[in-house]
């Protein structure tokens, strides 16, 4: 393979913590895993939490620290949603890998190399229920020689029998402070200029997701060079500018259907994402003072329905128009339709 240019590596990968102790803000997990490194004793693990909080990073880091680069390939099996993980794979590939017995090898490599293998199942919530069920027995039978690491966003999609076999760790969204220190570190490494306004915008739009923050930062750096303003960050992030949201909201308040229709058409033609629009509109409505609680409830209910419809693949224009029309009805206390 031709050598990879350093610049072509995404910063997310470049600045991924290599050691468990470098993982920010997840104290309990780090404490347990540091303990694991010393005692080489490790339960099955289940990491869950919102995206970009360090779940995969932690799992990979512990695997690397336990085995070192030489043994890593033979001791760790990493499966994620891009690999086929139907029930067949669980029955054959995982089972075969799990069944192999291994011994402790200490050839002075400086790594603990405990006498078990690790199977990392990334994005485990996208596994089918059948596949999860098939894992139950496998986990128990080979628990002497194999440890499972499950990583998922939604713990409710992991079946109870699996969850109860694991030590569960919730990964918290990162606080603004920790995010800021990490971002500033990357800025220093990459020679970027970020003023304090841009910094707070960045942690606001990424909502505790460090990966998103770094991706935005890299995108903005690629597009706009080394000094980045908060406007540049907003334009790469796909967040809708505040005045567009306000324009739609005031069109709803005006009570004129055609004005709202025009605003909605404008939003679509500008190519803004409607689901993003809905979540920003929701923020505006919840914080607005001149709407009664009941009206807010009616609007939010409709926003929730529209969001579900969008996920089902419904048309963006019609859904946003429905929300706008419903909002208008709610504000002017007209009865709304359906359900």
């Amino acid at each position, binding site marked *: *393979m*031709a*050598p*990879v*240019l350093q*610049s*072509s590596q*995404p910063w997310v*990968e470049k600045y991924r913590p290599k050691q468990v102790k470098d993982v920010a803000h997840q104290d309990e997990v780090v404490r347990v895993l540091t303990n694991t490194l010393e005692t080489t004793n490790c339960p099955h693990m289940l990491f869950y939490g919102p*995206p970009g909080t360090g779940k995969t990073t932690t799992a990979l880091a512990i695997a690397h620290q336990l085995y070192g680069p030489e043994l890593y390939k033979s001791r760790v099996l990493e499966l*994620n*949603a*891009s*690999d*086929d993980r139907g029930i*067949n794979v669980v029955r054959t590939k995982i089972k075969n890998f799990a069944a192999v017995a291994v011994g402790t090898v200490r050839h002075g490599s400086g790594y603990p190399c405990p006498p078990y293998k690790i199977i990392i199942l*990334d994005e485990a919530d996208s596994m089918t229920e059948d596949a999860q069920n098939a894992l139950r027995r496998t986990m128990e039978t080979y628990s002497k020689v194999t440890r499972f690491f499950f990583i998922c966003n939604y713990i409710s999609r992991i079946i109870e029998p699996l969850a109860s076999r694991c030590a569960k760790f919730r990964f918290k969204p990162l606080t603004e402070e920790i995010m800021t220190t990490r971002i500033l570190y990357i800025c220093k490494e990459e020679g970027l200029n970020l003023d304090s306004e841009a910094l707070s915008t960045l942690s606001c739009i990424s909502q505790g997701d460090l990966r998103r923050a770094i*991706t935005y930062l*890299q*995108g903005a750096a*690629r*597009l*706009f*060079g080394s000094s980045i303003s908060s406007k540049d960050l907003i*334009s*790469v*992030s796909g967040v809708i*500018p505040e*005045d*567009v949201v306000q*324009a739609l909201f005031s069109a709803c308040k005006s009570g*004129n*259907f055609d004005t709202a*229709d025009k605003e909605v058409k*404008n939003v679509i033609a*500008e*190519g*803004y*994402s*409607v689901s*993003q629009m809905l979540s920003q509109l929701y923020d505006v409505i919840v914080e607005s003072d001149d709407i009664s609680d009941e009206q807010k409830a009616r609007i939010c209910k409709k926003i929730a329905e*529209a969001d579900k419809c*969008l996920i*089902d*693949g*419904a*048309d*963006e*224009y*019609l*859904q946003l*128009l*429905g929300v706008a*029309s*419903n909002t208008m*009805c709610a504000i002017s206390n*007209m009865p*709304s*339709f*359906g359900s």
Partner: protein
Amino acid sequence: MLWVDKYRPKTLDKVLVHQDIAQNLKKLVTEQDCPHLLFYGPSGSGKKTLIMALLRQLFGASADKVKVENKNWKVDAGSRTIDVELTTLSSTHHVELSPSDAGFQDRYVVQEIIKEMAKNRPIDTKGKKGFKVLVLNEVDKLSREAQHSLRRTMEKYSSSCRLILCCNSSSKVTEAIRSRCLNMRISAPTEGENFCDTKVRRQLFQPMSMYIVKVLEFIGKKEGLQLPSGFADRIAQQSNRSLRRAILSFETCRVQQYPFTTNQPIPPMDWEEYVSEIASSIFKEQSPKRLFEVRGKLYELLINCIPPEIILKRLLYELLKKLDSELKHETSHWAAYYEHRLRLGQKAIFHLEAFVAKFMSIYKGFLIETFG
């Protein structure tokens, strides 16, 4: 050659409508490298043009030499093998395909075929440009599973392969994919200066962007045509902010009658006229008999490959034009409702017909209430 293709900008420098984006893209690839990109925006806004120009910027003229291939893949899916047939457009440096064409089997396309393509790394004679580009169209039509599968592929093979994704609505692309790409929002070009009120202009105003009218005038000049004043304005107005459509109808006008006259009619799309006929026949009479007639007309539209959601949207547009504001709310609610069901369901005609029936009943009720 159609004007749409003839005047498609070939390089990033020549792009007229989104000059600022084009310049940014150019900066992005100066080091012969780019991140994963996601282009989204309404149709006719120039996504594909920008992508093609970007590829040319990256790889030079060799990006133009594309060959179309109809390939068959045998994908091993556990107990059985699945045949997937896909059309690909490929040059030495890039491959373009629409994985959603495979329907519900799109997951296998992503898991096997795209992974396979992403793994193979082209070797250049000079030993540089060590990556290839995969252009995926219509990613918003991919199923959830396929999108899930895509996200790891994007990370794992990021050293050998760049993905350029292209879609209409970014709502339908999962957050996980959006956060791994540099998002490029391509807005539809505005019709012209006369069409923006000041407030909107302040929002949208990009100092270097061009209006549809300007593009039409540019083409007119190149073709050596005399444009009566206000003619380009009218074409732009009818285009729904789609540049492609504006240029197509401009050419149609040229074929129909030249020299142009100031009040020359701009032919609307025939299916749109048909929908507006349907709308007026709904307004004339609301009865099961009329519903049956409308159903026949809707069928005709569907047979001619007009997508059902487009029919529904156009029908709503025609109906809203003639309604009281009170009924507008109700009608738009039901339009959204039936369009959602149309997505979930199998046969489009049921839902279109249900919408028409619902509207007839609402309208009839309204007429009885008002006029007795």
